């Protein structure tokens, strides 16, 4: 066992002092302070939520982050472009492939190249598959947090079918790192299309199952309807995105409204919104999104163009000087990269705009006055991933 070094000791002491300070800050005479996290089943691992309670009613709620802060924005400055792709895979670890795409697109925009159509279609395919892998887990996770245990197992079970397809196409079950500037690493393997269609059938069955098992359950509805209502203007002001925004009734989907170099406009699908803005509508919208994704994937598979999968790019990638912003509609919401290049091998500065960071910012607002069980519902329905918040 290695001895702890000075630096480590210092960090340890610092972190402890910080904890203590937060504790002091929240200690009150009235009511009670309840810590949820950093290790708590409701906080997806490592978010810490400090609730000031009066009985079981929340007076104020303060998310404490940074337990998963890995310094992405600094690390991107010392990596080359292909290396950054590896790194950003791990921001939203459930929809890994979707993390790569906007960064690659931003780099391509700066370099003024465009991937060939087949690459674009395959990117869209994998993008949507990672969306399914992400959101199907959300469905199980939310059910689990509301107490329905079995749904989570079904989610894990059926998610595997999608992961299998991603793995057989990219070689990576979790972090594909399949995108390259100018195209893709490889073409699809033989027989993949048939298998994927079969797995999409499974996913549709899964959606039906969840609709009866979870969404249609009276208790689930009683727990989620009218809980954690976020009106549209609040959602806009906080910069909520993705299904959270659409569940508040804002009809906005970057896939449809601002397509950047991917093939969504080539197929027929629908953007679902829900007027209520409560936890149930967030669940409902996401469940519909899985359905739409399977539809998109089926159509993309049918119309997959042939041709090259890689544009002509130099062997050593140097990105010309400039600034570019590309955002895509990721599973968790809008994810964007603001890439500043100085013409080096690596980016000069990358600002990563992640969905969860903004989505969770609304938590103090929306949990004020609710009860402890509802906090869990709201957190689960907002659906954040810690890597996506802290980066």
């Amino acid at each position: 066992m290695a001895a702890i070094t000075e630096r480590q000791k210092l960090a340890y002491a610092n972190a402890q002092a910080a904890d203590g300070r937060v504790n002091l800050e929240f200690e009150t005479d009235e009511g009670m302070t309840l810590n949820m996290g950093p290790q708590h089943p409701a906080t997806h691992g490592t978010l810490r939520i400090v609730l000031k309670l009066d009985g079981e009613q929340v007076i104020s709620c303060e998310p404490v982050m940074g337990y998963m802060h890995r310094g992405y924005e600094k690390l991107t400055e010392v990596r080359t472009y292909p290396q950054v792709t590896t790194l950003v895979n791990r921001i939203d670890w459930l929809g890994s492939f979707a993390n790569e795409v906007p960064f690659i697109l931003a780099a391509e925009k700066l370099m003024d190249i465009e991937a060939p159509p087949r690459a674009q279609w395959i990117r869209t395919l994998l993008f949507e598959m990672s969306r399914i892998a992400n959101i199907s887990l959300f469905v199980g996770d939310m059910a689990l947090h509301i107490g329905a245990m079995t749904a989570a197992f079904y989610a894990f079970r059926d998610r595997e079918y999608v992961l299998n397809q991603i793995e057989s196409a990219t070689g990576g079950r979790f972090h594909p790192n399949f995108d390259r500037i100018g195209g893709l690493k490889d073409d699809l393997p033989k027989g993949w299309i048939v298998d994927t269609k079969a797995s999409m059938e499974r996913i549709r069955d899964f959606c039906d199952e969840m609709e009866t098992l979870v969404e249609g359950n009276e208790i689930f509805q009683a727990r989620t309807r009218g809980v954690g209502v976020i009106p549209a203007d609040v959602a806009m002001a906080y910069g909520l995105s993705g299904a959270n925004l659409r569940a508040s009734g804002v009809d906005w989907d970057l896939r449809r409204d601002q397509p950047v170099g991917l093939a969504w406009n080539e197929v027929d699908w629908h953007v679902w919104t829900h007027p209520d803005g409560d936890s149930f509508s967030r669940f409902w919208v996401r469940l519909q999104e899985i359905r739409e994704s399977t539809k998109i994937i089926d159509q993309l598979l049918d119309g997959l163009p042939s041709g090259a999968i890689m544009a002509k790019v130099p062997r050593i990638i140097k990105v010309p000087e400039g600034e570019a912003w590309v955002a895509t509609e990721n599973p968790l919401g809008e994810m964007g990269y603001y890439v500043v290049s100085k013409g080096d091998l690596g980016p000069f500065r990358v600002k990563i705009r992640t969905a969860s960071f903004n989505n969770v910012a609304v938590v103090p607002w929306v949990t004020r006055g609710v009860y402890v069980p509802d906090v869990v519902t709201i957190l689960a329905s907002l659906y954040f991933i810690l890597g996506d918040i802290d980066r």
Partner: protein
Amino acid sequence: MIPLSSPETTEAPEAEAPATDEAREELVAALTTELGDAVVGSHIRTGDDVWVRVTRDAWREAGLVARDHLGFRYFEFLSALDWLPSPFGKNEDSPTDPPPTPSTDIVTGYAGGDTRFQVFARLHSFSQKLGLTLKVDIPDDDLRIDTWLPVFAGVNWHEREVLEMFGITFTGHPHLVKLYLPGEFEGYPLRKDFPLLARHVKPWPGIVDVEPMPAGDEPAEPDATDASDAAEGGDA
């Protein structure tokens, strides 16, 4: 639109794009009329994006104008830029080579700039389907700027993040404390002159057959090497 062009013709869309971008030029014009002299620079990439740089005093004003008069109701993010070239390079050079001599010239990006630090924020308009990047210079000797909290409630954590990463203070922010890092973490990590210690003390793993590190400026940190010894797991 997705131009389904073959890779050979990737240059084509650029040529076909209209030479002017009326919507974005109108936008800049509108901002200029609303804010007057406060708009000190702008840049339009045709068909793609627009950058506008305002003075520090007009920062909040610019946000309000964009939100209320120009329809930019959706807040994407707020962050900062440090235009100082990194004095350390990437530490990926062979340790035997002489260290690179970095330039200290500050070259700012689109819409210009006069200072090392810039705060920038991005807004979006759903109705016009336009994005807008607002930039503002922050002088080195006075790293302060008005908070945008009255403009967009969601800016709260972004400003805290900028404080932590760059050390820029937002006046008027009610709860401006660190967001991520524990306790008394020293330094502002996203400033270019913040060193990544591990890169300094450890040879860049991308270079194989590297010579042992010269007993140089500072001793190798034992924990880093120990950790790599103890771990059986491979890197990604």
